[in-house]
């Protein structure tokens, strides 16, 4: 009896315990894997969201500077030159901004351009001193669309995708904002 009490578990008990342990281990491993994948997915989602958010945050204040003017014949020149009002949206926008420093009585204007090229959002500052003065506003976008809804309202849509860390799927973020050019409110 003493010996048998030291012998520990019976084979049946050991098998049952092993089976339970294996089951619990599998559940734990699966839970951990799920948690890790969830983490990776969230990081991926955040990454794409951050890209689109950054794009819109950088584009919006630059568009705010767009302003209409009038030509020598007194005809109003629109703030947005391209695209024209209405669909389809374009991946490039051209608009009029004043030349700094501004003389309020005789302001001079130049054309600025924002467009998407190889995933990078570029701003052609077109400054008088350097007509080729480009600046990269942000990178990692798959699509950028400008839809001009009226002479002072632009719908901007940014889309970014990054591949999932293991599967062949993609994380995608599509962010849209409506830019109301402030000159309208101040007329």
């Amino acid at each position, binding site marked *: 009896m003493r010996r048998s*009490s030291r012998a*520990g*578990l019976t084979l049946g008990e050991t098998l049952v*315990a092993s089976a339970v342990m294996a089951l*619990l281990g599998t559940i*734990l491993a699966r*839970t*951990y894997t799920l*948690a*890790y994948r*969830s*983490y990776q997915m*969230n*990081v991926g989602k*955040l990454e794409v*969201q*951050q890209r689109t*958010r950054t794009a819109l*945050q950088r584009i919006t*204040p630059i568009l*705010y*500077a767009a*302003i209409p*003017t*009038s030509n*020598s*014949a*007194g*005809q109003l020149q629109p703030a947005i030159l391209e695209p024209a009002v209405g669909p389809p949206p374009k991946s490039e926008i051209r608009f009029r*901004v*004043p030349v*700094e420093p*501004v*003389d*309020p*009585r*005789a*302001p001079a204007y130049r054309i600025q351009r924002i467009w998407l090229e190889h995933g990078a959002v570029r701003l052609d500052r077109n400054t008088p001193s350097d007509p080729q003065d480009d600046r990269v506003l942000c990178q990692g976008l798959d699509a950028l669309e400008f839809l001009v809804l009226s002479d002072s309202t632009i719908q901007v849509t940014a889309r970014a995708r990054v591949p999932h860390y293991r599967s062949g799927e993609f994380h995608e973020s599509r962010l849209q904002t409506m830019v109301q050019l*402030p*000159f309208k*409110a*101040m*007329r």
Partner: protein
Amino acid sequence: MSRSRQERQGVALLMAIMFLAALFSLSLLLLAVLPLEMRATGRQKMETEAFYAAEAGVLQALAWMETRAAKGHPAIPSGSDKYELTGSVANWNWKAEIGAVPVNPSNPDDTRPAYTVRSTAFLGGTRYRSVSVALCQESMSRFAWFEESGSEGLWIGAESFRIDGPFHTNKYIQVNVPSGFYGSNHPSTFTQGVTMAGAAPNSPDGVNYNCPFGTNNPPFDSKGRPIEERYRKIFGEGGSSNVLPRVKKIQLPSHAKDLAAEAWGSGLPPPTQIGVHPGLGSSSNRVEGGLYIVGDVKKMTLAVTGGNRRLTITQGSNTVEVLETVSGTAVAPDGSVIPKDSTMVRTGDEFAVYSGLTNGLVYCTGNINSLSGVNRGKRTIAVDVAQGKDITITADLTRADTSPGQAPTGSRDNLGLVGHNIWIQNSSSHTEANPLDIYAALMGGRRNADGTVSGYVGPTDVYGPLTRVRLFGGLMMGDKQTWGKYSGGRQYSGMTLESRYDSHLANSPPPYFPSIAKFRVVSYREEHEQSAVDW
């Protein structure tokens, strides 16, 4: 059995610890992700709030300036070139700094009031975002046609009027559209939009098409829906969007004191002795203002001599000649050379030469009973509007940079006239084939203390010979009276007008020409002061 149970309890503890560890690591992963999202959202929220707070400051400053201007004051208090406004929106505070922009020395003719407004959003004393705006106050000369008009609104014949520039009335318009007009080849009556501070009752667009003696032939259907083709025929390419009722009133000025001060060029009291006084300001030999004339002017003639501009002013039997060497040197009566950019004032055999040119402003305390000639350089001729003084145009008033009958192609010789009334002398020699040419922004009218408006632009005699006038510029009037008398549907006396808008007067108005309480935003720049969240 009891030891065996103890061993099993140990396994259960181990399992529980493992479970807890797994859950803990899961929680840690989530905690690592959540703050990123929260920070990004918080940053976006604060930046948006900061932007709207800064913009609120700009809008408030703009409204404040417009309110002052509407009351006839400078947009910021006189004597200062800066002013500061503060306010708050929810938890945010804003501070708007308004600064007057001095006249550009390289473009001294453009004297329109101009300002910058920089509004900054604060939270807890920390600056977050700023908005900078550059503004230029609009001139009255931007209108092709401005009219206060009588209580019944302005009556316009769609077929007999053509106004090819901005039109504004502080009441509303009544348009008589003859039958067949919509299908005719007649060009559109208006081209650049109509704004009205009032609106005709029961009209969908604020215009009365059912005016007396007219046909009720509106451009909308029985349910008030616009028929765009018809609208374009009356109001130009913009169609129904070219008519804006119930806009802000635009006030005529009640006086021309500002112009008097600029003409005299000094804060010192102006002279009271009858005659022509160059605006010497604080100097004794340099012209700093314009020309200040005390008393009635019998005749004023504008001319160009050797490319330089000359003004001849006759008061009673006294004639004064003012020559400004804008183009090159000239010869004085004694044979000496007058250097370029000088002003000579000559009375009989006596003359004096001052350095510098006038600011283009000619102000007269009395009536100008005869005005004509060829203008050179930007100029405004004004009289004491508050005292009801008038200007009478007696012959062609043209400009040196444009052949008579042609539309101006530049703004070098822009001319503005400001009076209580601007009269145009009747003359039977001015017919359709030989009209009287006037190149100017004509402003006749004032706002009276009781809120009424008086003064207008019209013929000296509505019963006088029918005179054809061809105006290249704009017309600003208090209350239009009839321009002539009719018989059998035909006008037989007074004056008829062919009006052609000169847009150069809008972008480059005559010096010190009265402004309206409206500011044009010429630039808008949004600046980050700092990141709203410290990453």
